[in-house]
């Protein structure tokens, strides 16, 4: 029922055209391997399992399988909020790489999302960076603009630019030059507990249609059941915060700049617009006026919301499809009556499209990760083994592994991944996957600017915290954040 409902919702989406155009416009790039204009859960199902790929064979054309070399590689890896399933795929990938390229001495290092940028920046200052790095989508332009990265396009590792989401390619492009290859791209969805909805007098099978409804539902759940309604996240220096607040901001018609338009120029700061303030007001209403969200939202990350949700203490949240698997993992670790309670929550877990704003605008962060190769002068030892780095990138960005490494939490960066047999298997095994793939056309990339990490990880969370703690009014917090962005863009 959910799938049918979602499929039609996707087809009905009226505002999606503008957003989809920014992500899917292919006129300048040629034809992609899948028809993005037909994107829907039904279409994704229809192409799954229709093509086989020989990963080792394809990568052998880039770097011979008997190539002897050495590669240092950092990557944004799994963290506490990821399911065990993903951990296994990461393990399998590196084992497979070592078997496929037995003569490449691989020295890999996993870092969490919140640590990677800081550590990578520090390493670059000391010319001690790895030869290749897999960064969050937000980071590519920062390092490309500063000249740390080598030009690198999908064609350099055996693929074509059209094999990847156009929106993802924007995030690895700076000043007209491509500096990386997308590995995975993702959009989140809206998750709710149907049992809590029912007990609170809400329709258990219907997600809130608008963000205003989220505010109302959250209050109703809290007033009737005494638990938190919506899993607001407003921690500073944590990627989870912008990933959950920006969809709300865009849905209300706001933005940091004009990033939600088809052809953003990033010239005009919009954080202090009435629409942006309305979005901030919605968070304020939930946290301060209604007290219907966790009080701990200011220090919480999504990983803190997950145990609350599985304990039946949280009604709604925004997250990945992998949260279903995380709930299964948490349930497996529970004991006694907690196990049964967790099972009840899992049975009542529902996914839906992220709510719209007052004007019907629906938006979600177009997230993901990219792999880059560093310039030798910034690398420890002053040398980059390019064939070894390209072998790694070819393998990770292959249809097979870009799909497997995103198995539960994301989507393949390589669009051919949607055609593999593993995608078919995944559609059958990963519950609610089609909901998040349905959200992909609504995805808006973060501004492709070197200043984006500071804006998203520090200025936006600061704005939220200033408003929610009462340190500033909503208007003051939005104006303050807008000023900080203007100062930042002005080089201060």
């Amino acid at each position, binding site marked *: 029922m959910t799938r049918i409902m979602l499929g039609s919702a996707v087809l009905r989406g009226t505002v999606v055209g503008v957003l989809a155009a920014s992500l899917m416009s292919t006129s300048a790039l040629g034809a992609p391997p899948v028809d993005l204009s037909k994107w829907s859960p039904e279409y994704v199902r229809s192409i799954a399992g229709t093509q086989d790929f020989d990963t080792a064979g394809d990568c052998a054309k880039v770097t011979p399988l008997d190539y002897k070399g050495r590669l240092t590689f950092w990557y944004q890896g799994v963290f506490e909020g990821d399911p065990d399933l993903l951990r296994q795929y990461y393990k399998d990938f590196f084992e497979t790489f070592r078997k496929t390229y037995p003569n490449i001495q691989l020295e890999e290092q996993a870092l969490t999302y919140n640590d990677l940028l800081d550590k990578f*920046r520090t390493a670059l200052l000391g010319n001690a960076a790895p030869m290749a790095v897999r960064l969050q989508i937000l980071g590519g332009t920062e390092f490309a603009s*500063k000249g740390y990265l080598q030009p690198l396009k999908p064609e350099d590792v055996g693929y074509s630019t059209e094999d990847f989401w156009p929106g993802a390619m924007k995030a690895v492009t700076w000043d007209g030059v491509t500096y990386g290859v997308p590995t995975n791209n993702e959009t989140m969805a809206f998750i709710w507990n149907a049992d809590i909805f029912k007990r609170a007098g809400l329709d258990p099978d219907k997600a809130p249609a608008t963000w205003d409804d989220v505010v109302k539902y959250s209050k109703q759940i809290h007033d009737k059941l005494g638990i938190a309604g919506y899993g607001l996240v407003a921690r*500073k220096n944590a990627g989870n915060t912008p990933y959950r607040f920006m969809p709300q901001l865009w849905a209300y018609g706001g933005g940091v700049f004009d990033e939600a338009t088809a052809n953003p120029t990033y010239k005009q700061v919009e954080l202090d617009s009435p629409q942006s303030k309305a979005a901030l007001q919605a968070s304020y209403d939930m946290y301060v006026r209604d007290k219907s969200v966790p*009080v*701990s939202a*200011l*220090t919480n990350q999504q990983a803190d919301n997950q145990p609350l949700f599985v304990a039946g203490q949280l009604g709604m949240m925004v997250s990945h499809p992998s949260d279903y698997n995380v709930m299964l993992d948490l349930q497996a670790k529970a004991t006694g009556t907690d196990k049964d309670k967790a099972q009840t929550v899992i049975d009542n877990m529902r996914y839906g499209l992220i709510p719209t704003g007052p004007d019907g605008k629906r938006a979600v962060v177009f997230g993901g990760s990219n792999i880059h190769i560093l310039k030798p002068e910034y690398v420890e030892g002053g040398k980059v083994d390019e064939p070894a780095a390209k072998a790694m990138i070819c393998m990770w960005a292959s249809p097979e592994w870009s799909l497997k490494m995103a198995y539960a939490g994301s989507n393949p960066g390589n669009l051919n991944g949607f055609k593999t047999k593993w995608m078919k298997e995944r559609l059958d095994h990963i519950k609610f996957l089609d909901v998040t793939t349905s959200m992909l056309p609504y995805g808006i990339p973060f501004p492709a600017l070197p200043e984006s990490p500071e804006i998203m990880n520090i200025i936006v969370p600061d704005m939220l915290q200033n408003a929610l703690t009462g*340190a*500033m009014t909503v208007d003051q917090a939005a104006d303050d954040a807008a000023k900080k962005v203007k100062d930042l863009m002005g080089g201060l």
Partner: protein
Amino acid sequence: MTIVTGKAEARRKLQPGRSGVLRNIWAHRADYAYVLPAIAVMLVVIAYPIYYTIELSFYKTPPGLQLRDKTFIGFDNYTTILTSEVFWKVTWNTLVWTFGSTFISFVLGFATALALHRDFIGRGVLRAILIIPWVISAVAASYIWKWIYHSDFGIIGAVLVGLGLTDRPPNFIDNVSTVLPSLIVVNIWREFPFAMIMMMAGLQTVPDQLLRAAKVDGANAWQRFWHVTFPHLRNVSVVTILLLAVANFNSFIIPWIMTAGGPSNASHIWITHIYELAFGRQRWGVASAYSVLLFLILMTLGYFYVRALSGNERKEGGA
């Protein structure tokens, strides 16, 4: 006839005014040769970073450029810092954090040391238990306390609600007024065992015969403590307080892990603010200027620490 002791002779030899620094170094060339590798390592890992930080503090380092593209701006970074609102807020937080943590940790540690100085059954076990917070990793402790304080499902809140003392769990770390005191409590919990150990060691140096003599003279417990015990502990107290103060000025783990300086900068102290400026916002120049100021404060504390230590040595040496 004058008898010159070994110590006095060594002291005379170290008086550069008498023989000149260079002659002195030459006379002790073998000694200097032995410590040269250590000095070289210290120059590389301590002196150069200090020099580089001072140098960077005079440069503008825009976040959109590489560090090599920095531009010289003289004292502008220092002016920026001293005229910014955040600086005064963060400085106030740092003072509250440092003095609050240091003073209470010391008092609590001293009181515990006095209590444990007396002989009673289970003293060893109690002493071992009280040291646990100090040996636990600060990272692990921060995560544990984050959940203890959790504003929705923390154990303190659950107990208070369970006892009917409050309707809602208290908001410890998600409130601008309570976050800093709450973090100070965690810091005290971690640090007071250190003060306790230091003061216990100091208590063992108080001559028992003096205490007995005071008792014979009719001094009560308070008078014996104030006129005999405490004067003997003055130097160890100064050293302990200085070490705690330096550690607290430099404290990073607890506030960063528990709140990342939030909410709304209410728990940002200098060191977390410097980290955010440098690694989060890439204002290396401003962060370096902050670091230089912090360095000067810590050097001042360090001077008093060394002076306190040399005071001890002079007393032990009978000078």
